[in-house]
């Protein structure tokens, strides 16, 4: 009997309050939020780190550069002095606050500084593309679901076309084309190296993943009594959408946000790893993994660290997404309680 009591309590409160309380008491929320906040703050501090700590320009090659370790000036890229003396290796981590704390990459650039700048770009693209997907997807889903008939068919077929292509295949194809020629449409002009290109591409390819479930939900909502009552009372379409439909769709949209951001971030990293995302000398975690691939035997951290950061960020976003979903789904909570 006692384990039924919380369910009764939950049902007596507003859904928003239930969600907030649930989230507040969910350990996953705190852990994921803390990790995300930590990573975001770190990456935002990239310019400060490069200027005051590493004192290097992470976007300029420093192949013949030097640094000071234990009072001695050493080359950032060191010629092998053993055996046949072939091969040049970047300096490894010094594990000290200052220049080259995490070592150098094959251009002699500070890995720590590039990791932070790379994180800025990866997160910027992830969040922006994620929100772009959510915005366009929600808009299209609501318009298609509410309008029905020709508008629904038209939008749905477009979504079907995008859906028909595997996400990565479509992303790669668009990236290759747009990277070569840039994007020009009316007054909008994006150069081939622009960060807006991966944002636009990634934001586009995931639209059906949001729009289709939203459309389904709106079709169901359209048949509900309160919507029919609003229609019967002569409310305008915009009033019905914004006052009746949207508030009921928003919980789903919120659940989508962390998932879409994580997917966008992973896609950006994949595209950059393939050299068709963020372009040099800019960095992203994907480009740093690519740079580190050629150093796996000698300086594995160059590839491993951005990989680790991607995993932590993606897992945190997914944990947060799960927590939000549980919090916003009272039925699930009730099922769990019963």
């Amino acid at each position, binding site marked *: 009997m006692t384990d039924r009591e919380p369910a009764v309590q939950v049902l007596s409160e507003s859904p928003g309050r239930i969600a907030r309380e649930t989230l507040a008491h969910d350990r996953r929320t705190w852990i994921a939020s803390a990790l995300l906040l930590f990573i975001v703050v770190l990456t935002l501090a990239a310019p400060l780190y490069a200027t005051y700590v590493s004192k290097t320009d992470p976007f300029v090659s420093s*192949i013949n550069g030097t640094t000071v370790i234990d009072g001695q000036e050493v080359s950032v890229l060191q010629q092998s002095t053993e055996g046949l*003396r072939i091969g040049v290796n970047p300096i490894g981590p010094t594990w000290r606050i200052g220049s080259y704390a995490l070592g150098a990459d094959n251009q002699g650039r500070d890995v720590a500084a590039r990791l932070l700048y790379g994180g800025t770009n990866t997160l910027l693209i992830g969040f922006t593309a994620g929100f772009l997907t959510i915005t366009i997807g929600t808009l299209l889903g609501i318009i298609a679901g509410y309008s029905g008939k020709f508008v629904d068919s038209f939008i749905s077929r477009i979504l079907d076309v995008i859906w028909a292509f595997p996400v990565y295949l479509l992303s790669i194809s668009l990236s290759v084309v747009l990277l070569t020629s840039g994007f020009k449409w009316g007054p909008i002009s994006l150069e081939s190296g622009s960060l807006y290109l991966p944002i636009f591409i990634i934001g586009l390819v995931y639209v059906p993943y949001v729009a289709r479930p939203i459309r389904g939900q709106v079709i169901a909502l359209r048949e509900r009594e309160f919507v029919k009552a609003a229609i019967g009372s002569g409310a305008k379409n915009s009033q019905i959408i914004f006052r009746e439909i949207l508030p009921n769709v928003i919980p789903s949209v919120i659940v989508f946000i962390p998932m879409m951001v994580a997917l966008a971030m992973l896609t950006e990293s994949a595209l950059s790893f393939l050299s068709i995302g963020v372009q040099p000398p800019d960095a992203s975690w994907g480009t740093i993994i690519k740079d580190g691939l050629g150093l796996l035997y000698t300086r594995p951290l160059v590839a491993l660290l951005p990989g680790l950061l991607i995993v932590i960020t993606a897992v945190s976003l997914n944990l947060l997404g799960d927590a939000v979903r549980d919090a916003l789904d009272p039925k699930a909570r009730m099922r769990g309680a019963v």
Partner: protein
Amino acid sequence: MRRSKSVAALLSLAFILSACSSGADDEAGSSAQAQEGVLAAYDESKAGGTLRLVAKGAAGTLDPHINYTLQFWQLYQAAYDGLLAFRKVDGPKSFEIVPDLAEALPEVSADGKTLTFTLRSGIKFSDGRDVTVADVKASFERIFKVSSPTAGGFYNGIVGADKCLANPATCNLDKGIVVDAATNKIVMNLTGADATIKYKLALPHAVILPADAPSKDAGSDPIPGTGAYTFASYDPNNELKMVRNTHFVEWNREAQPAGYPDEIVYSFGLTAEAQVNAIKNDQADWMLDPIPADRLTELGTENADQINVHTLTAMWYLPMNNNLAPFDNVKARQAVNYALDRNAMVKIFGGEQLASPACTFLPPGFPGHADFCQYTKGADTASPAKEWTEPDLEKAKALVKESGTLGQKVGIVVSDDEVNKQMGEYVQSVLNQIGYKATLKPISSNIQFTYIQNTNNKVQISISQWYQDFPAAMDFSYILLGCESFTPGSDSSINMAGYCNKDINKRMIAAMELAVTDEDAANKEWGVIDKDIMDEAPVAVAFTPKQVDFLSKRVKNYNFSKQFYMLVSQLQVK
């Protein structure tokens, strides 16, 4: 010629005179290496076994008149013969020409326009048929019928070649190649004296094939040859197999020596990392692709006795489009030359043991090479230094300002392999430092070389490589920067810079003519021309690379030909 798909380099083979400077000091070799300049007598007891070669990919068609890659040219040395051949020895003497299917070097007429050969008797193709003078004539006609990539460049001097180039299918060289079956005489008539013809006749595109060889690209179907080995099978996605030519009898060991392995198996599909591991684990004997940068130190210390390093007559360079902003301005081009830190590029390539900074268009040790460098700190075109020492960024920045090109956008087109991309990223950084807005455009190694040649693609600057075809200065200066090598709108416009100085072009043609009678004087003139060309900086030369061969422990008798690199058939695996 493309060196390999992965490197996307051009291979053209050059010749270094015996006095050239590629001495043993530059080379690192294993204890299994052969004696320089001498091909040891054949040791029957070492014959046998299977030699296992590995590469990331195959090199396309197996047709020796068409394939233009070092990867297969290396194999053709053991499978095909021309009238002449480069001497099959280790070291600089490998640039010397020796008679192969011809009994002796040709008798050359006083005007240099007629070469007379006598075909050796008793030589058979791998299918058992005798080699005849009719095969010789048909082979030269076939060069044009199959539109060999060098038909127009190397063999256009044969009388009748112009018509063959215009109508390949009906090519007839009755006047250019006159043969006499009774005496085995072959008379080659040229439209003009050509000091380099002997080298061109020793290249794989001039090998002798059966007269009934298909008049089209043979693709994956092997064509019988006369060498010590014959191709048994070829699957470009899997494997190439060579076996002994049972009809082969050694006639001139310096031209076509008997080989040691019973079989040579070339496997395709392994990454460079996997190739290294395969050799370390004794699962392969030699790898084609460059050793990954992060494995060099490891191999140079743990497997030093399996590594062989050799200086090449080649260069990595940056062609700048002389007809497109900002590099249509000589000061902008000079700025790039001053700004490039050659030592940095050498480091990216693997360090000072694997490459040397360069400044001249003709590589060190190459005929015509003169020591000078206008584009190093403290030097200029009026008072060049002896060699490159360090970049001069300040001067480069000043030149960019003077040129009025400051802030312009520059696209750098590079191959998408690891080393080229790193080079590109470095060049991008340098161009940004001197005031340009540079973007990097890595494109597939398979198309980059033709892409950067075509003016329609509006390539401003690129990174490319040139490996010598044959040993003459014209193979660098005239081929790469001659007016005749510039064909706007074509994928085959090897003068990527689009540089055409008519005065210098005339002097280059004059130097080629001079070489027929006085090679030394011609080479001296090439050195002066090189300096005059580089004053205008149509390109920026970066460094001279070295070749690294990584062999398995069981391989012995390594010979490095300056012309065709490792002599595959001479490796012993038993």
